[in-house]
């Protein structure tokens, strides 16, 4: 039998997990990443990873994890895959534990668990407040081991440009660009697994890393891969706003007892410490007594918006609220939250162990992503698989905190064997594909580069990017109104027109970051429209998608997955039923009457 050839694009948690599974199966795999994989965005995940290990005698179970996840996602997630993920989660934690992840421990030397949003159980394993970093490093080390055994070949510093599709629209490899030499090259493969992460850059400033542009997903979308539930964008309630990025203040701060509040008297100018307990408005605790500060993110974010914009109670009139951990003993803070408190201290010069932090919601995560099937992480394009944040499968209309890490690992674990099975079953592998197929794709991509490099326009790409980000953040995040969405869509088309009149200010052919940024920007503009138009179409409120004109969830019309198709420059939507076979949809509420 011929040996299948697999490519993985993206070296975050999902990608590395897929690589490890392929290498374990003895299948050679090429791994492509824009950055050295150890610098992938997974390092930014702070709080932890969920698994119903039930080590605290609370009666937790994988079924409860499953229920919390489906309910938290407002019933938009397909239940089959979610159930399997929750069942796999305890084993995933054990695997990470065996790999040497420095999880926090109990006195007995067992894994410690903390509480997170959207659940009443201690279900989140954690390594200080840098859990994603610790997990990524553990997988990175295993991949390095396989690399030294020559089972894995890494292409770090390469950016994905497009899939190579044959005459039957079957994926036969990828086309990528070396970010140093700017060489465009094709790489034959029988199957490609995409683990290209988030899309934060579409919103300008987000909690995401600079590399999270969604460019690869968008390129695939434009080549015929469907994109699902694009309109579901998670805005994290607690981030430190910044000009370059909004730095996340993990939910774990609340999981360890952090409280969100504003002074009861709007505009109160006293320093936080001087405001007595009775004059503080702990609005999450008052409005949601059962879950308190640990309501799901969409709920907490809308509550903060209400306090700031409707009730005009933001700190000194500014869009900010307090996230307060100053009542927690220093020793506990340093042991469990040091990683994030250090960020606040370094970037704002204020010690959050002493003073409440000033935070505000920021774009954080996309629940939507490449459409994949319910069993194999397979997109609708033969030979293309997806795992991690870049696909849509596990979080429905709102993701619960600490579920992203588990979905990354689980997706990678499923994708690799599925891709190998597919590749093994092919009559003819990529070696039988005529070289002209690869030649043509390479030429097509080089042509795009040439056009950009020689454009004699006046528009600066950074300016276009900032405008896109500002519009998307203002109109397509927490509160959505149809007229604003229409205007945003028009604006995005204007920006796409202006993009044609771009001027690169750097036309060199060595490590030209401006060129690669422009390629990404072009793709981001397409993705932005997909999100905006998806939001425009969905006239209901569900999870993170909230329209004041349609304030209720409407299962009769909208308990459906949005599936976007790209067709010669236009985006079309179809809708398909959601798998609700195990848990019948029920009203979702976290307030006192729940």
């Amino acid at each position, binding site marked *: 039998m011929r040996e299948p050839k697999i490519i993985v694009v993206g070296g975050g948690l999902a990608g590395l*997990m897929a690589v*490890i599974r392929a290498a*374990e199966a003895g299948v050679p795999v090429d791994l492509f990443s824009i*950055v*050295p994989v*150890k*610098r*992938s*965005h997974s*390092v*930014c995940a702070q709080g932890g990873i969920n698994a119903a290990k039930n080590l605290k005698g609370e009666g937790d179970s994988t079924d409860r994890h499953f229920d919390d996840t489906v309910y938290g996602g407002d019933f938009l997630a397909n239940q089959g895959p979610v159930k399997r993920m929750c069942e796999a989660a305890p*084993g995933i934690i*054990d*695997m990470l534990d*065996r*790999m*040497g992840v*420095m*999880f*926090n*421990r*109990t*006195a007995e*030397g067992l*894994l410690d668990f903390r509480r997170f949003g959207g659940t009443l159980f201690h279900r989140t394993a954690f*390594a*200080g407040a*840098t859990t994603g*970093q610790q997990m990524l*490093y*553990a997988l990175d*080390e*295993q991949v*390095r*081991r396989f690399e*030294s055994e020559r089972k894995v070949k890494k292409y*770090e510093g390469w950016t994905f440009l497009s899939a190579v599709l044959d005459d039957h629209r079957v994926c036969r490899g990828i086309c990528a660009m070396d970010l140093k030499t700017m060489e465009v090259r094709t790489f034959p493969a029988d199957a490609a697994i995409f683990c290209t992460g988030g899309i934060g850059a579409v919103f300008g400033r987000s909690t995401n*890393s*600079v*590399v999270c542009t969604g460019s690869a997903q968008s390129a695939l979308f434009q080549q015929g891969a469907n994109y699902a539930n694009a309109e579901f964008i998670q805005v994290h309630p607690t981030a430190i706003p910044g*000009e*370059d*990025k909004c*730095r*996340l203040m993990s939910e774990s701060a609340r999981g360890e007892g952090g409280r969100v509040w504003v002074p009861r008297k709007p505009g109160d100018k006293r320093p936080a410490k001087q405001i007595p307990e009775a004059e503080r408005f702990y609005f999450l605790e008052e409005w949601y007594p059962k879950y308190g500060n640990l309501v799901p993110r969409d709920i907490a974010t809308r509550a903060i918006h209400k306090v700031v914009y409707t009730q005009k109670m933001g700190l000194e009139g500014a869009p900010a609220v307090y996230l307060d951990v100053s009542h927690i003993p220093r020793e506990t803070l340093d*042991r469990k939250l040091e990683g994030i408190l250090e*960020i606040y201290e*370094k*970037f704002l010069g204020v010690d959050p162990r002493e003073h409440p932090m000033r935070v505000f919601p920021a774009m954080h995560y996309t629940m939507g992503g490449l459409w994949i099937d319910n069993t194999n992480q397979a997109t609708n394009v033969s030979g293309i698989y997806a795992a991690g944040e870049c696909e849509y499968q596990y979080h429905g209309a709102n993701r619960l905190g600490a579920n992203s890490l588990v979905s990354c690992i689980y997706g990678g*674990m499923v994708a690799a064997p599925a891709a190998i099975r597919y590749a093994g079953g092919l009559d003819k592998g990529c070696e039988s594909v005529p070289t002209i197929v690869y030649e043509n794709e390479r030429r097509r991509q080089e042509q795009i580069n040439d056009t950009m490099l020689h454009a004699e326009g*006046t528009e600066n790409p*950074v300016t276009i990017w*900032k405008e896109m980000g500002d519009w998307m953040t203002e109109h397509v995040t927490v509160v959505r109104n149809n007229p604003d969405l229409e205007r945003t869509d028009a604006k995005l088309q204007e920006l796409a027109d202006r993009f044609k009149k771009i001027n690169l*200010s*750097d036309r*060199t052919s*060595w*490590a030209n*970051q*401006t060129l690669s940024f422009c390629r990404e920007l072009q793709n981001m503009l397409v993705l932005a429209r997909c999100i905006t138009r998806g939001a425009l179409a969905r006239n209901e409120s569900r999870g993170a998608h909230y329209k004041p004109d349609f304030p209720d969830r409407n299962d009769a019309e909208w308990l459906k997955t949005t599936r976007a198709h790209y067709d010669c420059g236009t985006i079309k939507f179809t809708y398909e039923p959601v798998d609700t076979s195990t848990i019948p949809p029920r009203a979702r509420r976290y307030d006192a009457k729940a």
Partner: protein
Amino acid sequence: MDTAAPGGGNSGRKVVVRVKRRPDTREEPRWEEFALDWRPHMNIIICLRDIAERPVTRDGHATTPVSYEASCLEEVCGACAMLINGVSRQACSTLVDSLEQPIRIEPLTKFPVVRDLVVDRSIMFENLKRMKCWVPLDGTYDLGPGPRISPEVQEKYYPLARCITCGNCLEVCPQVNENSDFVGAAILSQVRLFNAHPTGAMHMKERLAAVMGPGGVADCANAQNCVEVCPKQIPLTESIAEVNRQAIREAVFGWLLG
């Protein structure tokens, strides 16, 4: 188009930045100076982005955006190490207001320059490979939980696991230079971490053999510059001392223990 630097600064205050430019490896470096609009909480990455949006030097010459590496912007990915006013540090967490102006920005000097501020640090990843910095694993299938570890041990070793492979500790080490293969503090500290893990310790002998070889722990001359610059405050000198003890023990008793 608005000619002011981006970001809507209106205080009139300027930030003067000098960047060492090198278009490619064949050309000699040169300095370029930029005057940017000051805003609160500005860091070095914001300065470099301002330049990208308006690549014009202080004296009005059009230039190219500066090439640099950055990703997380919260000092956890390690990408953005550079020399800022002569100090090796992360650009994203370096606030303009804490610096004397003009601010001098240069690439690290102990690694090959690719372009401008981008350097090639792949040697660090290669050395992690050489030192077998991983836990040997039978497989990723479900084999039950890992070894029990006391909270004390976890608290001692978790800080070592936070190394972001930024390379600052190598940059300031006099022993890391063109004539030496010294792997540097970061790698030795990782050796200590994996030797300490109950399963990782199963590779201890091989790791120590590598550590006792060329470029290993014997090359450390105890300058202790590394701890000063490590953005994660990793106790590097402690790590090196510990690995050194392990190496000596192995050299003296290794044959006995088999």
